Protein backbone atom coordinates (compact mmCIF):
# COMPACT_ATOMS: atom_id res chain seq x y z
CA UNK A 1 0.00 0.00 0.00
CA UNK A 2 1.16 3.50 -0.83
CA UNK A 3 0.00 6.37 1.36
CA UNK A 4 0.89 9.85 0.15
CA UNK A 5 0.14 12.78 2.45
CA UNK A 6 0.36 16.45 1.50
CA UNK A 7 3.20 15.73 -0.94
CA UNK A 8 5.00 18.78 -2.25
CA UNK A 9 7.79 19.14 -4.77
CA UNK A 10 9.35 22.47 -5.65
CA UNK A 11 12.03 22.76 -8.33
CA UNK A 12 14.51 25.60 -8.17
CA UNK A 13 15.14 26.84 -11.69
CA UNK A 14 17.70 29.59 -11.21
CA UNK A 15 15.98 32.25 -9.13
CA UNK A 16 12.53 30.90 -9.91
CA UNK A 17 10.77 28.29 -7.82
CA UNK A 18 8.39 26.01 -9.68
CA UNK A 19 5.91 24.01 -7.64
CA UNK A 20 5.37 20.72 -9.46
CA UNK A 21 3.33 19.17 -6.64
CA UNK A 22 1.43 21.42 -4.27
CA UNK A 23 0.12 19.08 -1.62
CA UNK A 24 -1.09 15.78 -3.04
CA UNK A 25 -2.62 13.18 -0.78
CA UNK A 26 -3.74 9.78 -2.01
CA UNK A 27 -3.74 6.09 -1.19
CA UNK A 28 -3.02 3.21 -3.55
CA UNK A 29 -4.04 -0.19 -2.28
CA UNK A 30 -2.09 -3.37 -2.75
CA UNK A 31 -2.87 -5.08 -6.05
CA UNK A 32 -4.37 -2.02 -7.72
CA UNK A 33 -3.54 -1.07 -11.29
CA UNK A 34 -3.70 2.70 -11.04
CA UNK A 35 -3.36 5.19 -13.85
CA UNK A 36 -2.17 8.73 -13.23
CA UNK A 37 -3.44 11.08 -15.88
CA UNK A 38 -3.57 14.76 -16.52
CA UNK A 39 -2.40 17.42 -18.93
CA UNK A 40 1.25 18.14 -19.57
CA UNK A 41 2.91 19.85 -16.61
CA UNK A 42 0.27 18.61 -14.20
CA UNK A 43 2.87 16.79 -12.10
CA UNK A 44 2.15 13.17 -13.14
CA UNK A 45 5.75 12.10 -13.63
CA UNK A 46 6.89 14.11 -10.62
CA UNK A 47 4.39 12.28 -8.44
CA UNK A 48 5.52 8.94 -9.83
CA UNK A 49 9.18 9.80 -9.22
CA UNK A 50 8.47 10.76 -5.61
CA UNK A 51 6.50 7.60 -4.93
CA UNK A 52 9.15 5.53 -6.72
CA UNK A 53 11.97 7.03 -4.59
CA UNK A 54 13.71 8.35 -7.67
CA UNK A 55 13.52 11.87 -6.28
CA UNK A 56 13.13 13.47 -2.88
CA UNK A 57 10.00 15.44 -2.03
CA UNK A 58 10.14 19.01 -0.74
CA UNK A 59 7.45 18.28 1.81
CA UNK A 60 4.84 15.77 2.92
CA UNK A 61 5.23 12.07 3.49
CA UNK A 62 5.14 8.82 1.57
CA UNK A 63 4.57 5.51 3.28
CA UNK A 64 5.06 2.36 1.27
CA UNK A 65 4.04 -0.90 2.88
CA UNK A 66 4.25 0.88 6.24
CA UNK A 67 7.71 2.37 5.76
CA UNK A 68 8.10 6.14 5.81
CA UNK A 69 10.37 6.18 2.79
CA UNK A 70 10.95 9.95 2.92
CA UNK A 71 13.00 9.35 6.07
CA UNK A 72 15.35 6.80 4.47
CA UNK A 73 18.93 7.73 3.67
CA UNK A 74 20.34 7.19 0.17
CA UNK A 75 21.68 3.74 0.90
CA UNK A 76 18.39 2.59 2.40
CA UNK A 77 16.37 4.12 -0.46
CA UNK A 78 18.53 2.23 -2.96
CA UNK A 79 18.02 -0.99 -1.04
CA UNK A 80 14.28 -0.31 -0.79
CA UNK A 81 14.02 0.26 -4.53
CA UNK A 82 15.93 -2.92 -5.25
CA UNK A 83 13.87 -5.12 -2.95
CA UNK A 84 10.39 -3.63 -3.35
CA UNK A 85 10.01 -1.58 -6.50
CA UNK A 86 10.18 -2.07 -10.26
CA UNK A 87 10.35 0.61 -12.94
CA UNK A 88 9.39 0.93 -16.56
CA UNK A 89 10.42 4.14 -18.26
CA UNK A 90 9.15 5.90 -21.34
CA UNK A 91 12.52 5.53 -23.10
CA UNK A 92 13.01 1.92 -21.88
CA UNK A 93 16.18 2.86 -19.95
CA UNK A 94 18.09 -0.28 -20.74
CA UNK A 95 21.83 -0.63 -20.21
CA UNK A 96 23.39 -0.68 -23.66
CA UNK A 97 26.46 -2.67 -22.64
CA UNK A 98 24.38 -5.55 -21.33
CA UNK A 99 22.52 -7.96 -23.56
CA UNK A 100 18.84 -8.71 -23.13
CA UNK A 101 19.09 -11.42 -20.50
CA UNK A 102 21.79 -9.52 -18.58
CA UNK A 103 19.62 -6.39 -18.53
CA UNK A 104 16.80 -8.37 -16.99
CA UNK A 105 19.05 -10.32 -14.61
CA UNK A 106 20.96 -7.37 -13.17
CA UNK A 107 18.45 -6.42 -10.41
CA UNK A 108 18.37 -10.08 -9.33
CA UNK A 109 22.16 -10.28 -9.39
CA UNK A 110 22.32 -7.14 -7.27
CA UNK A 111 20.10 -8.85 -4.70
CA UNK A 112 22.93 -11.34 -4.22
CA UNK A 113 21.07 -14.34 -5.61
CA UNK A 114 23.16 -17.11 -7.19
CA UNK A 115 24.04 -16.31 -10.80
CA UNK A 116 22.31 -19.36 -12.38
CA UNK A 117 19.13 -18.53 -10.48
CA UNK A 118 19.29 -14.92 -11.70
CA UNK A 119 19.68 -16.00 -15.31
CA UNK A 120 16.91 -18.58 -14.94
CA UNK A 121 14.57 -15.96 -13.49
CA UNK A 122 15.50 -13.50 -16.24
CA UNK A 123 14.94 -16.11 -18.92
CA UNK A 124 11.55 -16.99 -17.45
CA UNK A 125 10.55 -13.33 -17.43
CA UNK A 126 11.68 -12.86 -21.00
CA UNK A 127 9.72 -15.92 -22.00
CA UNK A 128 6.67 -14.39 -20.35
CA UNK A 129 7.03 -11.23 -22.44
CA UNK A 130 7.67 -13.28 -25.60
CA UNK A 131 11.39 -12.55 -25.98
CA UNK A 132 13.03 -15.86 -25.17
CA UNK A 133 14.51 -15.92 -28.67
CA UNK A 134 16.29 -12.60 -28.00
CA UNK A 135 18.26 -13.48 -24.87
CA UNK A 136 21.75 -12.83 -26.27
CA UNK A 137 20.86 -9.81 -28.37
CA UNK A 138 22.12 -6.38 -27.51
CA UNK A 139 19.39 -3.86 -26.83
CA UNK A 140 20.07 -1.76 -29.92
CA UNK A 141 19.20 -4.81 -32.01
CA UNK A 142 15.61 -4.76 -30.72
CA UNK A 143 12.58 -2.77 -31.83
CA UNK A 144 11.08 -0.18 -29.49
CA UNK A 145 8.29 -2.55 -28.50
CA UNK A 146 10.75 -5.32 -27.76
CA UNK A 147 12.94 -2.99 -25.71
CA UNK A 148 9.95 -1.97 -23.66
CA UNK A 149 9.10 -5.61 -23.03
CA UNK A 150 12.68 -6.17 -21.86
CA UNK A 151 12.20 -3.21 -19.55
CA UNK A 152 9.02 -4.78 -18.20
CA UNK A 153 10.79 -8.10 -17.67
CA UNK A 154 13.54 -6.28 -15.75
CA UNK A 155 10.97 -4.46 -13.63
CA UNK A 156 9.33 -7.74 -12.69
CA UNK A 157 12.31 -10.07 -12.26
CA UNK A 158 12.58 -9.47 -8.51
CA UNK A 159 8.78 -9.77 -8.17
CA UNK A 160 8.52 -6.32 -6.61
CA UNK A 161 5.38 -5.43 -4.72
CA UNK A 162 4.96 -2.24 -6.74
CA UNK A 163 5.79 -1.46 -10.37
CA UNK A 164 6.00 2.17 -11.48
CA UNK A 165 5.64 2.87 -15.17
CA UNK A 166 6.21 6.35 -16.56
CA UNK A 167 4.37 6.62 -19.88
CA UNK A 168 5.69 3.23 -21.02
CA UNK A 169 3.72 3.38 -24.27
CA UNK A 170 4.66 6.92 -25.28
CA UNK A 171 7.14 5.74 -27.90
CA UNK A 172 5.13 2.74 -29.08
CA UNK A 173 2.47 2.25 -31.70
CA UNK A 174 -0.96 1.08 -30.67
CA UNK A 175 -0.27 -2.61 -31.27
CA UNK A 176 2.89 -2.60 -29.17
CA UNK A 177 1.21 -0.44 -26.56
CA UNK A 178 -1.51 -3.03 -26.22
CA UNK A 179 1.06 -5.80 -25.79
CA UNK A 180 2.74 -3.81 -23.00
CA UNK A 181 -0.54 -3.02 -21.29
CA UNK A 182 -1.67 -6.63 -21.55
CA UNK A 183 1.52 -7.66 -19.79
CA UNK A 184 0.87 -5.19 -17.02
CA UNK A 185 -2.69 -6.36 -16.74
CA UNK A 186 -1.58 -9.98 -16.62
CA UNK A 187 1.02 -9.55 -13.88
CA UNK A 188 -1.33 -7.35 -11.94
CA UNK A 189 -4.02 -10.00 -12.18
CA UNK A 190 -1.81 -13.08 -11.75
CA UNK A 191 0.73 -11.87 -9.20
CA UNK A 192 -1.29 -9.13 -7.51
CA UNK A 193 1.51 -6.68 -8.03
CA UNK A 194 0.52 -3.07 -7.58
CA UNK A 195 1.05 -1.11 -10.77
CA UNK A 196 1.15 2.66 -10.92
CA UNK A 197 1.31 4.00 -14.44
CA UNK A 198 1.44 7.52 -15.82
CA UNK A 199 -0.38 7.93 -19.12
CA UNK A 200 -2.04 10.55 -21.22
CA UNK A 201 -3.88 8.19 -23.55
CA UNK A 202 -7.60 7.95 -22.92
CA UNK A 203 -7.86 4.44 -24.37
CA UNK A 204 -5.53 3.15 -21.62
CA UNK A 205 -8.40 3.65 -19.20
CA UNK A 206 -9.75 0.26 -20.12
CA UNK A 207 -6.74 -1.37 -18.43
CA UNK A 208 -6.77 0.62 -15.17
CA UNK A 209 -8.64 -0.25 -12.01
CA UNK A 210 -8.61 3.37 -11.00
CA UNK A 211 -7.45 6.64 -12.46
CA UNK A 212 -6.02 9.54 -10.48
CA UNK A 213 -6.24 12.89 -12.24
CA UNK A 214 -3.80 15.68 -11.59
CA UNK A 215 -3.90 19.32 -12.64
CA UNK A 216 -1.38 22.01 -11.77
CA UNK A 217 0.27 19.83 -9.14
CA UNK A 218 -2.94 19.10 -7.30
CA UNK A 219 -5.33 16.14 -7.25
CA UNK A 220 -8.14 16.79 -9.71
CA UNK A 221 -10.37 13.90 -8.81
CA UNK A 222 -10.27 10.19 -9.38
CA UNK A 223 -12.37 7.65 -11.18
CA UNK A 224 -12.91 3.99 -10.37
CA UNK A 225 -12.81 1.93 -13.57
CA UNK A 226 -13.18 -1.53 -12.06
CA UNK A 227 -12.54 -3.48 -8.89
CA UNK A 228 -8.83 -4.11 -8.17
CA UNK A 229 -7.25 -7.21 -9.64
CA UNK A 230 -7.07 -9.12 -6.41
CA UNK A 231 -10.87 -9.37 -6.48
CA UNK A 232 -10.98 -10.48 -10.10
CA UNK A 233 -10.77 -14.02 -11.40
CA UNK A 234 -7.55 -15.08 -13.11
CA UNK A 235 -7.27 -16.30 -16.69
CA UNK A 236 -8.41 -19.77 -15.66
CA UNK A 237 -11.44 -18.34 -13.96
CA UNK A 238 -10.16 -19.07 -10.45
CA UNK A 239 -11.00 -16.38 -7.89
CA UNK A 240 -8.07 -14.29 -6.72
CA UNK A 241 -6.76 -14.74 -3.16
Amino acid at each position, binding site marked *: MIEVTDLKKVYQLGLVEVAALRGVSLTIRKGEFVGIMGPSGSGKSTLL*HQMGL*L*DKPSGGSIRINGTDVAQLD*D*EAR*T*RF*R*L*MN*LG*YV*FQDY*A*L*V*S*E*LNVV*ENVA*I*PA*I*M*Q*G*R*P*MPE*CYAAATRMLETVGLKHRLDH*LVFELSGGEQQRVSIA*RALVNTPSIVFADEPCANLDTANSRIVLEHFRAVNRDLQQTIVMVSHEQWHLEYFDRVIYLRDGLLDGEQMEREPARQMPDRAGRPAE
Partner: protein
Amino acid sequence: MQNNGGYGVSLYLAVRAIRRGNRNTLALTILVIALVVVMMNFLTMIIGGVVTIYNQQMIDYQYGHVTIEPKDKETFITDAESLVRELQRVPGVTGVTTHLSTGTTITNIKNGQFLTRGLVAFDPVDEIAVTKYHLVIKEGTFLSKGDTDEILIGSLLAGHEDEAQDKVPSLGGVKVGDRLEVAYSNGVVKSYRVKGIFQTEGVTIDSSAFITRNEMDSVMHMEGMATEILVRGTSTDAAVPLKYTIMSYGVEEKVKTWNDRGKGFMGDAIASFSLINAIMTVVSLIVASVVVFIVTFINIINRRKQIGILKAIGIRRQVIVGSYLIQVLILCSCGILLGILMLNVISLTLTMYPLKFPMGYISPAPDYAGIAISVLALFFVALISGYIPAWQVAKEEILDAMRG
Protein backbone atom coordinates in the same frame (compact mmCIF):
# COMPACT_ATOMS: atom_id res chain seq x y z
CA MET B 1 31.43 -15.72 -11.01
CA GLN B 2 30.78 -15.48 -7.28
CA ASN B 3 27.89 -13.09 -6.71
CA ASN B 4 27.66 -11.26 -3.42
CA GLY B 5 25.52 -8.44 -4.76
CA GLY B 6 28.42 -6.03 -4.26
CA TYR B 7 31.80 -5.99 -5.92
CA GLY B 8 30.85 -9.14 -7.84
CA VAL B 9 28.31 -6.94 -9.62
CA SER B 10 31.01 -4.29 -10.12
CA LEU B 11 33.16 -6.88 -11.84
CA TYR B 12 30.16 -8.14 -13.83
CA LEU B 13 29.43 -4.62 -15.12
CA ALA B 14 33.11 -3.74 -15.68
CA VAL B 15 33.89 -6.80 -17.76
CA ARG B 16 30.88 -6.20 -19.98
CA ALA B 17 31.62 -2.50 -20.33
CA ILE B 18 35.13 -3.30 -21.53
CA ARG B 19 34.02 -6.17 -23.77
CA ARG B 20 31.29 -4.13 -25.44
CA GLY B 21 32.84 -0.67 -25.21
CA ASN B 22 34.73 1.24 -27.88
CA ARG B 23 37.66 -0.92 -29.00
CA ASN B 24 39.69 2.02 -30.35
CA THR B 25 39.44 3.98 -27.12
CA LEU B 26 40.37 0.85 -25.22
CA ALA B 27 43.42 0.16 -27.39
CA LEU B 28 44.60 3.78 -27.26
CA THR B 29 44.23 3.97 -23.49
CA ILE B 30 46.20 0.75 -23.02
CA LEU B 31 48.86 2.05 -25.41
CA VAL B 32 49.19 5.36 -23.55
CA ILE B 33 49.55 3.56 -20.21
CA ALA B 34 52.12 1.22 -21.78
CA LEU B 35 54.10 4.21 -23.09
CA VAL B 36 53.97 5.79 -19.64
CA VAL B 37 55.46 2.60 -18.19
CA VAL B 38 58.21 2.78 -20.81
CA MET B 39 58.81 6.48 -20.11
CA MET B 40 59.03 5.84 -16.39
CA ASN B 41 61.57 3.06 -16.71
CA PHE B 42 63.58 3.58 -19.90
CA LEU B 43 65.91 6.25 -18.58
CA THR B 44 66.42 4.27 -15.37
CA MET B 45 67.44 1.27 -17.47
CA ILE B 46 69.91 3.34 -19.46
CA ILE B 47 71.34 4.95 -16.30
CA GLY B 48 71.58 1.44 -14.87
CA GLY B 49 73.51 0.40 -17.98
CA VAL B 50 75.83 3.40 -17.67
CA VAL B 51 76.45 2.68 -14.00
CA THR B 52 77.04 -1.02 -14.69
CA ILE B 53 79.60 -0.40 -17.42
CA TYR B 54 81.27 2.42 -15.52
CA ASN B 55 81.56 0.25 -12.41
CA GLN B 56 82.95 -2.62 -14.47
CA GLN B 57 85.48 -0.33 -16.11
CA MET B 58 86.57 1.01 -12.74
CA ILE B 59 87.11 -2.54 -11.49
CA ASP B 60 88.67 -3.96 -14.64
CA TYR B 61 90.99 -1.11 -15.59
CA GLN B 62 91.36 1.49 -12.87
CA TYR B 63 90.98 0.28 -9.30
CA GLY B 64 90.57 -3.49 -9.13
CA HIS B 65 88.18 -4.49 -6.33
CA VAL B 66 90.28 -2.83 -3.64
CA THR B 67 92.97 -0.16 -3.94
CA ILE B 68 95.72 0.55 -1.41
CA GLU B 69 96.78 4.19 -1.39
CA PRO B 70 99.68 5.92 0.41
CA LYS B 71 99.16 7.02 3.99
CA ASP B 72 97.90 10.55 4.64
CA LYS B 73 100.39 13.25 3.64
CA GLU B 74 102.54 10.66 1.79
CA THR B 75 102.91 10.45 -1.99
CA PHE B 76 104.18 6.89 -2.21
CA ILE B 77 103.76 3.53 -0.57
CA THR B 78 107.36 3.09 0.45
CA ASP B 79 107.65 -0.62 1.13
CA ALA B 80 105.32 -1.84 -1.57
CA GLU B 81 107.01 -5.21 -2.08
CA SER B 82 106.48 -6.43 1.47
CA LEU B 83 102.94 -5.06 1.43
CA VAL B 84 102.24 -6.98 -1.78
CA ARG B 85 103.56 -10.17 -0.18
CA GLU B 86 101.29 -9.55 2.80
CA LEU B 87 98.29 -8.86 0.58
CA GLN B 88 98.87 -12.05 -1.37
CA ARG B 89 98.36 -14.00 1.87
CA VAL B 90 94.95 -12.40 2.58
CA PRO B 91 92.10 -14.86 1.98
CA GLY B 92 89.94 -13.88 -0.99
CA VAL B 93 92.74 -12.06 -2.82
CA THR B 94 93.21 -13.46 -6.33
CA GLY B 95 95.68 -10.90 -7.69
CA VAL B 96 97.83 -7.95 -6.61
CA THR B 97 99.63 -5.42 -8.80
CA THR B 98 101.60 -2.29 -7.96
CA HIS B 99 101.31 0.92 -9.98
CA LEU B 100 103.95 3.60 -9.98
CA SER B 101 102.79 6.76 -11.70
CA THR B 102 104.87 9.75 -12.70
CA GLY B 103 104.26 12.89 -14.66
CA THR B 104 105.69 12.90 -18.19
CA THR B 105 105.46 14.65 -21.50
CA ILE B 106 104.87 12.20 -24.33
CA THR B 107 105.77 13.30 -27.87
CA ASN B 108 104.88 11.61 -31.14
CA ILE B 109 108.23 11.65 -32.93
CA LYS B 110 106.50 11.26 -36.31
CA ASN B 111 104.55 14.52 -36.16
CA GLY B 112 105.92 16.33 -33.12
CA GLN B 113 102.57 16.41 -31.30
CA PHE B 114 102.94 16.10 -27.54
CA LEU B 115 100.78 15.75 -24.45
CA THR B 116 101.40 15.85 -20.72
CA ARG B 117 100.34 12.55 -19.18
CA GLY B 118 100.85 10.48 -16.08
CA LEU B 119 102.81 7.43 -17.18
CA VAL B 120 102.03 4.31 -15.17
CA ALA B 121 104.41 1.41 -14.65
CA PHE B 122 103.40 -2.11 -13.71
CA ASP B 123 104.65 -5.66 -13.73
CA PRO B 124 102.83 -7.20 -16.74
CA VAL B 125 102.58 -10.62 -15.07
CA ASP B 126 101.01 -9.17 -11.90
CA GLU B 127 98.80 -6.83 -13.95
CA ILE B 128 97.14 -9.65 -15.86
CA ALA B 129 95.92 -11.07 -12.54
CA VAL B 130 94.16 -7.82 -11.63
CA THR B 131 93.18 -5.75 -14.68
CA LYS B 132 92.01 -6.67 -18.18
CA TYR B 133 94.13 -4.48 -20.44
CA HIS B 134 95.61 -7.60 -21.98
CA LEU B 135 92.13 -8.56 -23.22
CA VAL B 136 91.38 -5.28 -25.01
CA ILE B 137 94.46 -4.90 -27.18
CA LYS B 138 93.27 -3.33 -30.42
CA GLU B 139 96.62 -3.43 -32.21
CA GLY B 140 99.95 -5.08 -31.35
CA THR B 141 100.46 -6.98 -28.11
CA PHE B 142 100.46 -6.50 -24.34
CA LEU B 143 103.68 -5.67 -22.50
CA SER B 144 106.01 -8.47 -21.35
CA LYS B 145 107.96 -8.51 -18.09
CA GLY B 146 111.33 -7.93 -19.76
CA ASP B 147 110.24 -5.05 -22.02
CA THR B 148 112.38 -1.95 -21.52
CA ASP B 149 112.04 -0.14 -24.80
CA GLU B 150 108.33 -0.46 -25.32
CA ILE B 151 105.18 1.37 -24.35
CA LEU B 152 101.48 0.47 -24.24
CA ILE B 153 99.04 3.30 -24.97
CA GLY B 154 95.28 3.80 -25.14
CA SER B 155 93.46 4.31 -28.43
CA LEU B 156 92.34 7.85 -27.57
CA LEU B 157 95.90 8.86 -26.71
CA ALA B 158 97.05 7.34 -30.01
CA GLY B 159 94.36 9.31 -31.83
CA HIS B 160 93.97 9.86 -35.57
CA GLU B 161 95.99 11.67 -38.15
CA ASP B 162 92.84 13.63 -38.89
CA GLU B 163 92.31 15.59 -35.67
CA ALA B 164 88.62 16.02 -36.45
CA GLN B 165 88.12 12.34 -35.64
CA ASP B 166 89.58 12.72 -32.14
CA LYS B 167 87.22 13.20 -29.20
CA VAL B 168 90.04 14.27 -26.85
CA PRO B 169 93.54 15.68 -27.40
CA SER B 170 95.76 12.95 -28.89
CA LEU B 171 99.20 12.29 -30.31
CA GLY B 172 97.77 12.57 -33.82
CA GLY B 173 97.61 9.05 -35.15
CA VAL B 174 100.07 6.69 -33.47
CA LYS B 175 100.38 3.14 -34.87
CA VAL B 176 102.03 0.04 -33.41
CA GLY B 177 105.75 0.27 -34.17
CA ASP B 178 105.80 4.08 -34.09
CA ARG B 179 108.16 5.69 -31.62
CA LEU B 180 107.19 8.02 -28.79
CA GLU B 181 109.55 10.21 -26.82
CA VAL B 182 108.88 10.40 -23.08
CA ALA B 183 110.32 13.26 -21.02
CA TYR B 184 110.35 12.33 -17.30
CA SER B 185 110.13 14.74 -14.40
CA ASN B 186 113.79 14.02 -13.46
CA GLY B 187 114.93 15.31 -16.86
CA VAL B 188 115.49 11.93 -18.49
CA VAL B 189 114.16 11.69 -22.05
CA LYS B 190 113.70 8.26 -23.60
CA SER B 191 112.27 6.94 -26.82
CA TYR B 192 109.88 3.94 -26.79
CA ARG B 193 108.42 1.78 -29.52
CA VAL B 194 104.62 1.44 -29.31
CA LYS B 195 104.09 -2.25 -28.59
CA GLY B 196 100.34 -2.23 -28.28
CA ILE B 197 97.26 -0.01 -28.39
CA PHE B 198 94.32 -0.91 -26.16
CA GLN B 199 90.72 0.21 -26.40
CA THR B 200 88.29 -0.02 -23.48
CA GLU B 201 85.89 2.75 -24.70
CA GLY B 202 86.48 4.56 -21.39
CA VAL B 203 87.67 8.10 -22.13
CA THR B 204 90.03 8.43 -19.16
CA ILE B 205 91.33 4.90 -19.47
CA ASP B 206 91.98 5.05 -23.21
CA SER B 207 93.98 8.25 -22.75
CA SER B 208 96.59 6.56 -20.54
CA ALA B 209 99.99 4.98 -21.21
CA PHE B 210 101.97 2.17 -19.54
CA ILE B 211 105.53 0.88 -19.40
CA THR B 212 107.02 -1.99 -17.42
CA ARG B 213 108.04 -1.57 -13.82
CA ASN B 214 111.63 -2.57 -14.65
CA GLU B 215 111.85 0.25 -17.18
CA MET B 216 110.41 2.84 -14.79
CA ASP B 217 112.84 1.76 -12.06
CA SER B 218 115.76 2.12 -14.47
CA VAL B 219 114.72 5.70 -15.17
CA MET B 220 113.27 6.95 -11.90
CA HIS B 221 115.16 4.70 -9.45
CA MET B 222 112.11 4.26 -7.21
CA GLU B 223 112.52 0.56 -6.51
CA GLY B 224 110.10 -0.83 -3.95
CA MET B 225 107.82 2.21 -4.14
CA ALA B 226 104.28 2.50 -5.53
CA THR B 227 101.65 5.16 -5.96
CA GLU B 228 98.90 2.57 -5.56
CA ILE B 229 98.39 -1.16 -5.21
CA LEU B 230 95.42 -2.77 -6.93
CA VAL B 231 93.89 -5.91 -5.45
CA ARG B 232 91.48 -8.28 -7.16
CA GLY B 233 89.06 -10.35 -5.12
CA THR B 234 86.75 -13.20 -5.97
CA SER B 235 83.77 -11.03 -6.90
CA THR B 236 82.46 -7.49 -7.00
CA ASP B 237 80.12 -8.17 -4.09
CA ALA B 238 83.10 -9.34 -2.01
CA ALA B 239 84.92 -6.00 -2.35
CA VAL B 240 83.67 -4.51 0.92
CA PRO B 241 84.39 -7.61 3.04
CA LEU B 242 87.78 -7.87 1.35
CA LYS B 243 88.57 -4.27 2.27
CA TYR B 244 87.87 -4.97 5.95
CA THR B 245 89.79 -8.24 5.85
CA ILE B 246 92.82 -6.39 4.45
CA MET B 247 92.46 -3.71 7.11
CA SER B 248 92.28 -6.39 9.76
CA TYR B 249 95.72 -7.55 8.65
CA GLY B 250 97.11 -4.31 10.01
CA VAL B 251 97.67 -2.51 6.71
CA GLU B 252 98.38 1.09 7.64
CA GLU B 253 97.90 2.56 4.17
CA LYS B 254 94.49 3.78 3.00
CA VAL B 255 92.33 0.84 1.88
CA LYS B 256 89.45 1.72 -0.46
CA THR B 257 86.99 -0.28 -2.49
CA TRP B 258 86.46 0.58 -6.15
CA ASN B 259 83.20 2.15 -5.10
CA ASP B 260 84.87 4.39 -2.52
CA ARG B 261 87.21 5.68 -5.19
CA GLY B 262 84.61 6.05 -7.93
CA LYS B 263 82.13 8.11 -5.93
CA GLY B 264 83.50 11.43 -7.09
CA PHE B 265 82.79 12.67 -10.59
CA MET B 266 80.65 9.77 -11.75
CA GLY B 267 78.74 9.72 -8.48
CA ASP B 268 77.74 13.34 -9.08
CA ALA B 269 76.83 12.56 -12.68
CA ILE B 270 74.69 9.61 -11.62
CA ALA B 271 73.03 11.72 -8.92
CA SER B 272 72.17 14.32 -11.58
CA PHE B 273 70.84 11.61 -13.90
CA SER B 274 68.80 10.20 -11.06
CA LEU B 275 67.30 13.62 -10.37
CA ILE B 276 66.35 14.02 -14.03
CA ASN B 277 64.94 10.51 -13.94
CA ALA B 278 62.89 11.30 -10.83
CA ILE B 279 61.49 14.42 -12.52
CA MET B 280 60.63 12.38 -15.61
CA THR B 281 58.95 9.76 -13.44
CA VAL B 282 56.79 12.37 -11.73
CA VAL B 283 55.89 13.93 -15.10
CA SER B 284 55.05 10.47 -16.46
CA LEU B 285 52.85 9.76 -13.46
CA ILE B 286 51.06 13.08 -13.96
CA VAL B 287 50.57 12.26 -17.66
CA ALA B 288 49.24 8.82 -16.72
CA SER B 289 46.86 10.21 -14.12
CA VAL B 290 45.58 12.89 -16.50
CA VAL B 291 45.06 10.32 -19.26
CA VAL B 292 43.22 7.93 -16.97
CA PHE B 293 41.17 10.83 -15.56
CA ILE B 294 40.19 12.05 -19.03
CA VAL B 295 39.39 8.57 -20.32
CA THR B 296 37.35 7.71 -17.23
CA PHE B 297 35.70 11.13 -17.21
CA ILE B 298 34.66 10.95 -20.88
CA ASN B 299 33.61 7.35 -20.40
CA ILE B 300 31.49 8.28 -17.40
CA ILE B 301 30.04 11.44 -18.91
CA ASN B 302 28.96 9.38 -21.92
CA ARG B 303 27.34 6.92 -19.56
CA ARG B 304 25.67 9.33 -17.16
CA LYS B 305 22.29 8.10 -18.28
CA GLN B 306 23.30 4.47 -17.77
CA ILE B 307 24.58 5.30 -14.30
CA GLY B 308 21.22 6.94 -13.56
CA ILE B 309 19.42 3.82 -14.82
CA LEU B 310 21.57 1.53 -12.71
CA LYS B 311 20.93 3.64 -9.63
CA ALA B 312 17.21 3.73 -10.39
CA ILE B 313 16.93 -0.05 -10.51
CA GLY B 314 18.71 -0.39 -7.19
CA ILE B 315 22.41 -0.69 -7.95
CA ARG B 316 24.35 0.90 -5.11
CA ARG B 317 26.62 3.88 -5.80
CA GLN B 318 29.66 2.01 -4.44
CA VAL B 319 28.99 -0.82 -6.88
CA ILE B 320 28.86 1.60 -9.81
CA VAL B 321 32.04 3.39 -8.70
CA GLY B 322 33.59 -0.03 -8.12
CA SER B 323 32.79 -1.07 -11.68
CA TYR B 324 34.69 1.95 -13.03
CA LEU B 325 37.62 1.31 -10.71
CA ILE B 326 37.76 -2.29 -11.90
CA GLN B 327 37.73 -1.03 -15.50
CA VAL B 328 40.64 1.27 -14.65
CA LEU B 329 42.46 -1.64 -12.98
CA ILE B 330 41.93 -3.87 -16.00
CA LEU B 331 43.05 -1.14 -18.43
CA CYS B 332 46.05 -0.35 -16.23
CA SER B 333 47.01 -4.00 -15.91
CA CYS B 334 46.85 -4.49 -19.68
CA GLY B 335 48.79 -1.25 -20.25
CA ILE B 336 51.42 -2.17 -17.68
CA LEU B 337 51.85 -5.66 -19.12
CA LEU B 338 52.20 -4.17 -22.60
CA GLY B 339 54.61 -1.56 -21.23
CA ILE B 340 56.78 -4.22 -19.57
CA LEU B 341 56.73 -6.21 -22.80
CA MET B 342 57.81 -3.09 -24.72
CA LEU B 343 60.56 -2.46 -22.16
CA ASN B 344 61.81 -6.02 -22.61
CA VAL B 345 61.78 -5.68 -26.39
CA ILE B 346 63.67 -2.37 -26.13
CA SER B 347 66.10 -3.89 -23.63
CA LEU B 348 66.68 -6.93 -25.84
CA THR B 349 67.16 -4.78 -28.93
CA LEU B 350 69.60 -2.47 -27.16
CA THR B 351 71.47 -5.47 -25.79
CA MET B 352 71.89 -6.76 -29.34
CA TYR B 353 72.64 -3.28 -30.70
CA PRO B 354 74.09 -1.35 -27.72
CA LEU B 355 74.05 2.43 -27.56
CA LYS B 356 77.48 4.08 -27.93
CA PHE B 357 78.23 6.30 -24.94
CA PRO B 358 81.50 8.10 -24.07
CA MET B 359 82.40 5.32 -21.62
CA GLY B 360 81.55 2.54 -24.04
CA TYR B 361 78.65 0.58 -25.43
CA ILE B 362 75.72 0.67 -23.06
CA SER B 363 73.19 -2.11 -22.72
CA PRO B 364 70.15 -1.24 -20.62
CA ALA B 365 70.10 -2.73 -17.13
CA PRO B 366 66.47 -3.29 -16.05
CA ASP B 367 65.84 -2.33 -12.45
CA TYR B 368 63.04 -4.72 -11.48
CA ALA B 369 62.52 -3.18 -8.06
CA GLY B 370 62.19 0.22 -9.74
CA ILE B 371 59.75 -1.17 -12.27
CA ALA B 372 57.67 -2.70 -9.46
CA ILE B 373 57.56 0.65 -7.64
CA SER B 374 56.59 2.51 -10.81
CA VAL B 375 53.85 -0.04 -11.50
CA LEU B 376 52.45 0.37 -7.99
CA ALA B 377 52.63 4.16 -8.32
CA LEU B 378 50.85 3.96 -11.67
CA PHE B 379 48.08 1.78 -10.22
CA PHE B 380 47.70 4.22 -7.35
CA VAL B 381 47.41 7.39 -9.46
CA ALA B 382 45.18 5.59 -11.97
CA LEU B 383 42.79 4.48 -9.24
CA ILE B 384 42.62 7.99 -7.81
CA SER B 385 42.12 9.44 -11.29
CA GLY B 386 39.40 6.90 -12.02
CA TYR B 387 37.71 7.26 -8.66
CA ILE B 388 37.20 11.04 -8.72
CA PRO B 389 35.05 11.29 -11.89
CA ALA B 390 33.22 8.04 -11.09
CA TRP B 391 32.33 9.24 -7.62
CA GLN B 392 31.29 12.69 -8.92
CA VAL B 393 28.81 11.28 -11.42
CA ALA B 394 27.62 8.44 -9.22
CA LYS B 395 26.62 10.89 -6.49
CA GLU B 396 24.36 12.80 -8.90
CA GLU B 397 20.60 12.69 -8.40
CA ILE B 398 19.09 9.77 -10.31
CA LEU B 399 16.80 11.86 -12.51
CA ASP B 400 19.57 14.36 -13.35
CA ALA B 401 21.84 11.49 -14.41
CA MET B 402 19.06 9.81 -16.39
CA ARG B 403 18.49 12.99 -18.37
CA GLY B 404 22.09 12.45 -19.61
